[in-house]
């Protein structure tokens, strides 16, 4: 028995962890009773924890690479894919804000990146996945199959991904042409996104503590893969070589009080001012562009010993302005410190239980404490009132009623699980909490 948590270090449960190193190990583990597969533990809350956990990182072999399609085992990390294939001119088709996630975890959460508005989510680039069911049989599922639709976004609750085929994206360099724009308030931010829907990548860092006529002020970052013409001669000669980043780390777990309205507010204001001053075109490397947080080892310790929570909702286009304004007003008024938060325009919904749908998604971190929990409860209500839903990969605490109200698909998902005999085989702390 080990104490196990998600990335936010909250909640923690006693877990019996088994590591799979072969298909036979997976079959044996499934036979032993209800379990939840776990990738690299980068989901924030309780998606990949429970009384019995199957660690999939030992199944991490790359099987083949042909015509841009990589076949690999579920435990392969996206960071390994970048490291292996970027030098050959291929990049991930979709990437979350950290590259330290597994192929299996990316499929199970159907993760989205900064290109969701144009390209969709991770599973839109998965040609097939081989999945082990409750009786140990392995089925190859492909888009169009009912079971594939439930697998994507199904949070490991419909079977264990053993292997999958992922279509990579050809790129001409490891550099990104970034265009940053300061938006003085929420309307400016949304107008900014809407004006640039053709930008391959788009994301905004939003100041969750700004109030009044600065409410929702943001730095919008648009990007596209650089072509040789964008690069200086020396970079053009070695388009995939990027400078090594120094790894920073937070040396100690800070006491929870180090983060407060004043310190974080000052940080956010400084970040905004710097962003506004540097607005314009810049060439940045893929690492800094896609994974700013990966350079800071153990950054979660900044939130103190109790851990932290992330709130991520998506709101439909029609209600986004009102809903975001209501949420940001609530957050700013609560004074609960949130470092730069993320705002993103999403494209249409794909998949039966995936999180994204067309509209705006807002993600913010909070240290675990009673006030944060109360605030998040209020944010749940705002999300519901505006027809939004929450992201299971970030969730550690939403009440089952909120999920049921926000997402009618949850009931269908639960009955699919029951009818297909999946509920008895696959269960996480999250599925128990939410009645999935």
């Amino acid at each position, binding site marked *: 028995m080990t104490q196990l948590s998600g990335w936010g270090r909250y909640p923690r449960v006693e877990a019996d962890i088994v590591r799979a190193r072969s298909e036979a190990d997976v079959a044996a583990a499934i036979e032993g009773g209800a379990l939840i597969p776990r990738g690299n533990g980068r989901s924030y809350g309780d998606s990949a924890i429970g009384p019995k956990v199957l660690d999939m990182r030992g199944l991490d*072999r790359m*099987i*083949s690479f042909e015509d841009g399609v990589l076949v690999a085992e579920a435990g392969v990390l996206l960071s390994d894919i970048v490291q292996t294939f970027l030098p050959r001119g291929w990049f991930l088709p979709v990437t979350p804000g950290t590259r330290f996630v597994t192929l299996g975890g990316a499929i199970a959460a159907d993760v989205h990146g900064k290109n969701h508005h144009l390209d969709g989510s991770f599973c839109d680039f998965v040609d097939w996945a081989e999945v082990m069911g409750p009786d140990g049989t392995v089925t190859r599922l492909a888009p169009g199959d009912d079971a594939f639709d439930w697998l994507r976004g199904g949070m490991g609750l419909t079977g264990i991904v053993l292997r999958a085929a992922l279509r990579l994206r050809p790129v001409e360099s490891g550099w990104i042409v970034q265009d940053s724009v300061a938006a003085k308030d929420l309307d400016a931010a949304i107008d900014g996104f809407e004006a640039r829907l053709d930008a391959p990548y788009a994301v905004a860092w939003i100041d969750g503590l700004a109030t009044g006529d600065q409410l929702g002020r943001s730095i919008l970052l648009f990007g596209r893969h650089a072509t040789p013409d964008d690069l200086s001669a020396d970079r053009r000669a070695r388009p995939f070589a990027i400078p090594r980043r120094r790894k920073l780390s937070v040396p100690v777990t800070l006491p929870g009080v180090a983060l407060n309205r004043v310190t974080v507010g000052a940080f956010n204001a400084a970040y905004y001012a710097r962003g506004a001053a540097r607005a314009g075109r810049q060439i940045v490397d893929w690492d800094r562009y896609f994974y700013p947080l990966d350079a800071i080892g153990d950054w979660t310790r900044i939130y103190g010993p109790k851990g932290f929570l992330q709130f991520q909702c998506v709101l439909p286009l029609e209600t986004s302005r009102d809903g975001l304004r209501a949420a940001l007003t609530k957050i700013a008024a609560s004074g609960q410190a949130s470092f730069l938060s993320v705002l993103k325009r999403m494209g249409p919904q794909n998949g039966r239980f995936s999180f994204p749908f067309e509209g705006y998604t807002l993600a913010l971190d909070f240290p675990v404490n009673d006030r944060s929990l109360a605030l998040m409860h209020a944010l749940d209500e705002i999300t519901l009132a505006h027809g939004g839903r929450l992201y299971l990969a970030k969730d550690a605490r939403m009440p089952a009623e909120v999920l049921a109200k926000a997402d009618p698909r949850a009931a269908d998902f639960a009955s699919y699980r029951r009818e297909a005999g999946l509920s008895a085989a696959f269960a996480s702390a999250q599925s128990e909490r939410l009645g999935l």
Partner: protein
Amino acid sequence: MARAIARAFAGAGHPVQLAARDPARLEADKADLETRFGVEVSLHEFDALDTDSHAAFVGGLPDLPDIAVCVVGYMGEQSENIADARAAARVLRSNLEGPASILERLAAAMSARGSGTLVGISSVAGDRGRASNYVYGAAKAGFTAYLSGLRNRLSAENVHVVTVLPGFVRTAMTEGMDLPERLTAEPEEVGAAIVQAVKKRRNIIYVRPIWRLVMAVIRNIPEPIFKKTKL
């Protein structure tokens, strides 16, 4: 552990020959090394316990390797190893007799060539026998001594021998054991440490440096006290 070691060498650009009792099981590993690192990989059938076949095995390899790493090992269950002489023999043969035999055949071929490096994975369990696993410990103690002798013999022939003492490693062998975090290495650490050790021609390595200290303490506990401990 073998998988991680192969990756570390392939990552450094070495072509790899993988040998195991059932080479068909290694197809995915071969594909992995080829896909990730673009090196050549071949598979070979090998049983450490079938010592009669070892000379022919070495002779039959397409190329005599520059570096050979013997990862073979078997722990069994201590209670069974005590109760059943045949179980004990299997542990002794898998960790000592078999590995010694194959390394000796490779040593002969390497010294005939005039170059090479042999790596043996032994264990800190061989540094001092403990009630909880002294059958395995005795086998590894024998293997450590064997490697030391081999190194001594081959030092004049430009064949180098590295003894690896991994400490605890998170592998199938230790699955389900409650291991102390700081003393437990991931297989990748072992792979990286071995590549370094071969490059720098080190003689004996502990993967996590803290083990050198831990074992110094354990080796120096006086026997009258040690026999009463539960380690």
